[in-house]
């Protein structure tokens, strides 16, 4: 049920006139809805909707050994699953590239922005640190899972609580929380992906639009405008001019998105 060439051409023609099938501007996000605490065993969890696209993101905390190169820092692991439940195209089986890419893009958006204060996640240097799992699941894929997932990861971490830890027993007391918030810095990362279709660049594609993109660029940046992660995907090249345009377009979209996210964070 991939999008047909005919529809693809129509999408491109429309974009040349500055129009999209759903009437949005080229750089306009769909309606963003963030719902918190959707799963009560997670230390933080949210449901994010971008139009018909829906993802669930949960934060779980564990205790593990630190990595040898960062003995005083906690560990972060982001995984994403594109569930067969979320789309007729997905088959059961080991994660395919889109799911791996999704997890890694979200991971780098969080990690590189220094949003998580990893040093505060150290329990005992060189021995025990908090291991943070951020797990993303698609519930309905109508395009742009990556931006929805990235927003979800930030939102879930922002509301995550720290479980109590019994150091003597080496046991996490799930369901009991300390008064401290999950350690975060002020550098809130926002990820926006730009998609090139023909001569145009769009933001937040529906599945149809995503299907016919020739190239995409995912940019993670903080509210102050510093870009901390970027990845170009797909096999069409992008001219320098186009890239410059993408940097500008995503910056504008990021500001809009940030305003919406801030509302939730309050």
């Amino acid at each position, binding site marked *: 049920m991939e999008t047909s060439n005919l529809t693809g051409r129509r999408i491109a023609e429309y974009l040349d006139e500055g129009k999209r099938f759903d009437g949005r501007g080229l750089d306009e996000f769909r309606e963003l809805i963030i719902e918190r605490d959707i799963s009560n065993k997670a230390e933080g969890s949210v449901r994010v909707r971008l139009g018909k696209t829906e993802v669930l993101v949960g934060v779980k905390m*564990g205790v593990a050994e630190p990595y040898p190169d960062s003995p005083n820092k906690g560990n972060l692991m982001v995984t994403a699953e594109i569930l067969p439940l979320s789309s*007729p195209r997905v088959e059961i089986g080991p994660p395919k590239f889109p799911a791996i890419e999704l997890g890694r893009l979200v991971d780098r958006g969080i990690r590189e922005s220094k949003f998580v204060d990893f040093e505060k996640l150290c329990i005992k240097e060189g021995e025990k640190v908090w291991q943070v799992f951020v797990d993303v699941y698609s519930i309905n894929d*109508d395009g742009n899972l990556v931006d929805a997932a990235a927003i979800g990861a930030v939102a879930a971490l922002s509301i995550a609580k720290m479980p109590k830890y019994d150091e003597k027993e080496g046991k996490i007391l799930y369901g009991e929380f300390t008064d401290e918030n999950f350690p975060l810095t002020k550098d809130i990362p926002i990820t926006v992906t730009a998609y090139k279709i023909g001569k145009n660049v769009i933001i937040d594609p529906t599945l149809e639009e995503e299907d016919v993109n020739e190239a995409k660029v995912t940019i993670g940046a903080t509210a102050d405008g510093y870009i901390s992660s970027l990845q170009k995907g797909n096999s069409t090249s992008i001219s320098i001019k186009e890239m410059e345009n993408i940097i500008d377009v995503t910056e504008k979209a990021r500001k809009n998105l940030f305003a919406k996210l801030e509302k939730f964070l309050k």
Partner: protein
Amino acid sequence: MAKTMEFKRPDGRKVNELRPISAKVGVVPNADGSAMFSFGGTIAIAAVYGPKKMHPQHQQNPEKGTLRCNYNMLSFSVSDRIRPGPSRRSTEISKITEWALEPMLMIGNYPNQVVDVHINIIQADASTRCAGINAAAMALAHAGIPMRGLVSSVSIGKLDKQLVVDVDKHEEDWEEGEGATDIPITMTPGGDITHLQLDGKITGKQLKEAITLAQGALKQIYEVQKKALKESVKL
């Protein structure tokens, strides 16, 4: 019956009382049919895709259509994070779910086709397979798959010597006296059993009582499922 009155459940429910149940249809727009079902803190969603051509081809059955269920717990649905991906437990529950639903399905006229049912547990507080089966039955009906009727599922527990309806996690870990026995049951509205499992220790007599007890609870669940489906077709 006097004993029934005395027994105190940890959350104060009566022995034959379900946790608050809720159901909703159409939770996954992409799917041909979908539903959410919850028992208290247990939330399951199910989505149906199909009938569609069975893939891989060697699994096609030229005589009749196939039902394929996939039960999956989200990693953060329990206190100790579950590693994502299939496990022996989830594989078994997937099969059990197929068996629970198949008797009501009329997919004989769909040779080489498959109906996929994807069940995901978003939040777990015991009885997840029952919530999954309830959601799956609704999702199949919502997808318009020919069926004789719905099935409804509930877990009956025996805590020490007392039978109770719809066990939660706290009760599942009951240790006093004879401990906990967990008996998930699925039935058709007509009272036929399509799924029955048991873990624990119980007499034949009490098992019969458990089945009788389940019937009352299943009736309530059936009504909730039916209501949610009816609401989804309101114009």
